[in-house]
């Protein structure tokens, strides 16, 4: 049947259906998460010529970044959690290494992420809370004590203080006799999404971008195996963005970083291979699958067409996925296991490289061990029982999936164009545009729940009286006191003149356009604290105040 005939047939069918609707109306309106129309039926008419979708492992990578995908190796099941202080974490790492794991992930507490020492008034109640507390090189030495840094790959979730923690990691390595160029690992280092959604920024966007550029340059010279950025849409989505916004804003951030790298003199053909992405997976199953496919295709086009990249591996969008914490409900928490399953399945069908599945009780408190295990088992069941990894990109060719993939791509590119017209992502953030778009969507979603246009099982429908889950939110207050004590001892014991000098030099470099990483490394070696180093830069760069655009 050619398209003309099909169109005739379709119209006929549609007409008949309209008749039936008079008697049996549909349940309501059906829409995408961004408010677009979802049609009753998708046909070849909606997808154009999809013989040009291409092949996995080939440009534009719609079907996956490798030719064999999960037939070769399943995605990496990466579950991470934060632990109180450096000693505890060190023990945990040693245990994991004994178990044969070679990748470590480090989560830091919020003061460390925002450049406050543990004794800063801002740190009250937060020390060691969501990760380890690092005040100085001394804590970092404890954290990696006895762990051979040439044998492991370390992933650090750190952004506005990434320069300082990277300098510390490198110094610990050197003290172990491992030279810089041998170190392997990743820093998140995605500052733009901090302004947009996650909130651990310190300085205004422009100087922050300069620091990132300095890190890129430093690593390309000194730490060639290090992955210098992980561009994250996860937090953007969790702050309330829809699927299109998640893709658009994340890739727009990506564009900004590639521009910065090129400005720093790096070759995008090489730099592009060190980039990785991080997305969320939500409940709208088919939409999510299409989202991952669209993102992959868009990034390949951006790298090729906009940045003139010719190396194919520099066009591949490789990503980590985490299931959505914000869709989990405090009510009837066991239902969350099902939500996580749907989301994890979408990530796998979307071709993720690694996956974190959330625990059912996260909406209530820190997860119990049992919940963490169920979350991991969910991935294993998908991997080993569901059969979906048997073939590459199994949903390709579905009229709906292909049409959604196209329309997400189109809409996301519209956003990217708009941001470009505003002068790029930094300008769009400064103007509060991106934050406002997300906040509007979050508010609309909340309104939809309250008006019951959006059903959330167990929250606004199918509710039941229930025994609340036993929660464990254990707070160890001693951790804070101990950390502060250690900090005091450190400050007394170190060569304070050396610290002063290093900080003075850092200030001068910050004011110039030299690379700031070198004086940061020196300050770290002199045992200057995170707070002291960050304060010097606060003085020079100023502090960012969020745009309140509700």
């Amino acid at each position, binding site marked *: 049947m050619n398209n003309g005939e099909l169109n005739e047939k379709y119209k006929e069918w549609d007409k008949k259906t309209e008749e039936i609707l008079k008697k049996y109306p549909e349940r309501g309106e059906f829409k995408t998460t961004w408010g677009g129309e979802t049609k009753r039926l998708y046909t070849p008419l909606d997808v154009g010529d999809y013989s040009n979708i291409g092949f996995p492992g080939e440009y534009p990578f719609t079907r996956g970044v490798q030719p064999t995908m999960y037939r070769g190796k399943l995605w990496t099941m990466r579950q991470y959690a934060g632990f109180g202080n450096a000693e505890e974490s060190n023990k945990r790492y040693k245990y994991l290494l004994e178990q044969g794991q070679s990748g470590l992930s480090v989560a830091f507490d919020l003061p460390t992420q925002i450049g406050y020492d543990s004794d800063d008034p801002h740190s009250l109640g937060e020390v060691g809370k969501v990760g380890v507390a690092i005040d100085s090189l001394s804590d970092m030495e404890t954290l990696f004590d006895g762990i051979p840094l040439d044998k492991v790959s370390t992933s650090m979730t750190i952004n506005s203080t990434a320069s300082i923690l990277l300098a510390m990691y490198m110094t610990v390595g050197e003290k172990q006799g491992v030279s810089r160029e041998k170190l392997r690992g990743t820093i998140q280092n995605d500052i733009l999404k901090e302004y947009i959604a996650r909130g651990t920024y310190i300085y*205004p966007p*422009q100087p922050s971008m300069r620091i990132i550029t300095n890190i890129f340059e430093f690593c390309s010279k000194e730490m060639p195996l290090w992955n210098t950025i992980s561009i994250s849409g996860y937090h953007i989505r969790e702050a309330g963005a829809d699927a299109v916004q998640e893709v658009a804003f994340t890739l727009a951030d990506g564009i900004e970083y590639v521009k910065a790298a090129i400005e720093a003199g790096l070759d995008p053909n090489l730099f592009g291979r060190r980039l990785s992405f991080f997305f969320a997976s939500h409940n709208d199953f088919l939409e999510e699958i299409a989202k991952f496919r669209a993102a992959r295709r868009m990034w390949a086009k951006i790298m090729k067409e906009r940045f003139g990249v010719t190396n194919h591996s520099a066009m591949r969008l490789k990503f980590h996925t985490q299931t959505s914490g914000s869709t989990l409900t405090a009510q009837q928490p066991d239902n969350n296991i099902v939500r996580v399953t749907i989301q994890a399945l979408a990530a796998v069908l979307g071709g993720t490289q690694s996956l974190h599945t959330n625990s059912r009780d996260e909406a209530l408190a820190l997860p119990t061990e049992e919940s963490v295990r169920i979350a991991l088992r969910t991935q294993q069941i998908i991997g080993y029982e569901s059969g979906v990894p048997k073939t590459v990109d199994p949903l390709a060719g579905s009229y709906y999936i292909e049409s959604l993939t196209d329309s997400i791509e189109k809409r996301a590119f519209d956003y990217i164009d708009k941001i470009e017209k505003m002068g790029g992502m930094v*300008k769009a953030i*400064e*103007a*509060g545009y991106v934050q406002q778009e997300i906040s509007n969507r979050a508010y609309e979603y909340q309104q939809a729940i309250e008006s019951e246009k959006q059903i959330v099982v167990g929250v606004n429908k199918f509710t039941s009286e229930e025994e609340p889950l036993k929660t464990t939110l254990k707070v160890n207050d001693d951790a804070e006191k101990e950390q502060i004590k250690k900090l005091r001892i450190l400050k007394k014991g170190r060569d304070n003149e050396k610290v002063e000098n290093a900080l003075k030099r850092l200030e001068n470099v910050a004011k110039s356009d030299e690379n700031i990483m070198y004086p940061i490394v020196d300050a770290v070696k002199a045992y200057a604290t995170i707070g002291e180093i960050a304060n010097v830069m606060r003085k*020079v*760069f*100023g*502090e*960012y*105040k*969020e745009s*309140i655009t*509700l």
Partner: protein
Amino acid sequence: MSNTRMREDEFLEGIKSHDRRSLAKMLSLCEKDPETANVLLDKLEKKTSHVVGITGSPGVGKSTLISAILDKMNGKNVGVIVVDPSSPFTGGALLGDRVRMQSHATNEKFFIRSFANRGALGGLSPSIYEACDTFESFGMDNVIIETVGVGQSEIDVSNIADTVIVVLSPDNGDEIQMMKAGLMEIADLFVINKSDNPRSQILLSRLRAMTAGSKEVPIYLTNAVTSEGVERLVRALDSRFFQILSDGTLSQKRRKRLLNHVKSMIRRELDRLVQSFEIDGISPKEMRDHIIEELCRKKRL
């Protein structure tokens, strides 16, 4: 004692003895019951602060600039009034300027207060005169007022401020347009903020060209985020105050402010009367006559 009530004499004592909480309550009274506030204000000693109005399009950096100015005001007592728009539909408002000044929230010399414009045109609050008088009676050295910054008709600030700063930034393309709409005339000082943006130099030369020939208005370049240029601005404000104090400009301004305060009081009473009138079967003229009669009958409001 309940949270929202404080007796009048307590207010007066509190303000005289520099009690922060009384100031907070008095400012609420200015909004809730401006008539009573005016009665109380009459019983307080008049003092004079340098009242600085700051206006300019949204996003040019007014709030950030105020925060930077406060940084350089060590030792002085400063009251800050920030005004944001109310929704014409729900009456609700989101008061967001304070966010940029929160690092000063616990400084005992400074007092920041947010107001919604509650439908008032001109970018200020309907109780702006009472609020400003309250800060002056409290003994502030400076009162800084940030206008809403949305309309092009925000020239009311010149009715109350001794010094008006018009802030521009190279980010906003429509600046020159704004200038034509009357802001030019009310500026005592121009600030080109966001001097870190290279285009600020272009804006500077354009502004120079535009102001050439008219009264001399100094232009200051600032970076409100890093405070660059702010110290100079603060010093300029101080010397301007001495200048207008000695050359008689200040007393002229104060006379104008007094008249405007009175007008705003009369307008408020008029509004109240108009609102309370039954309009069934009455012509506009009859209604006007009734209202005037009512006003005269009530000689003392």
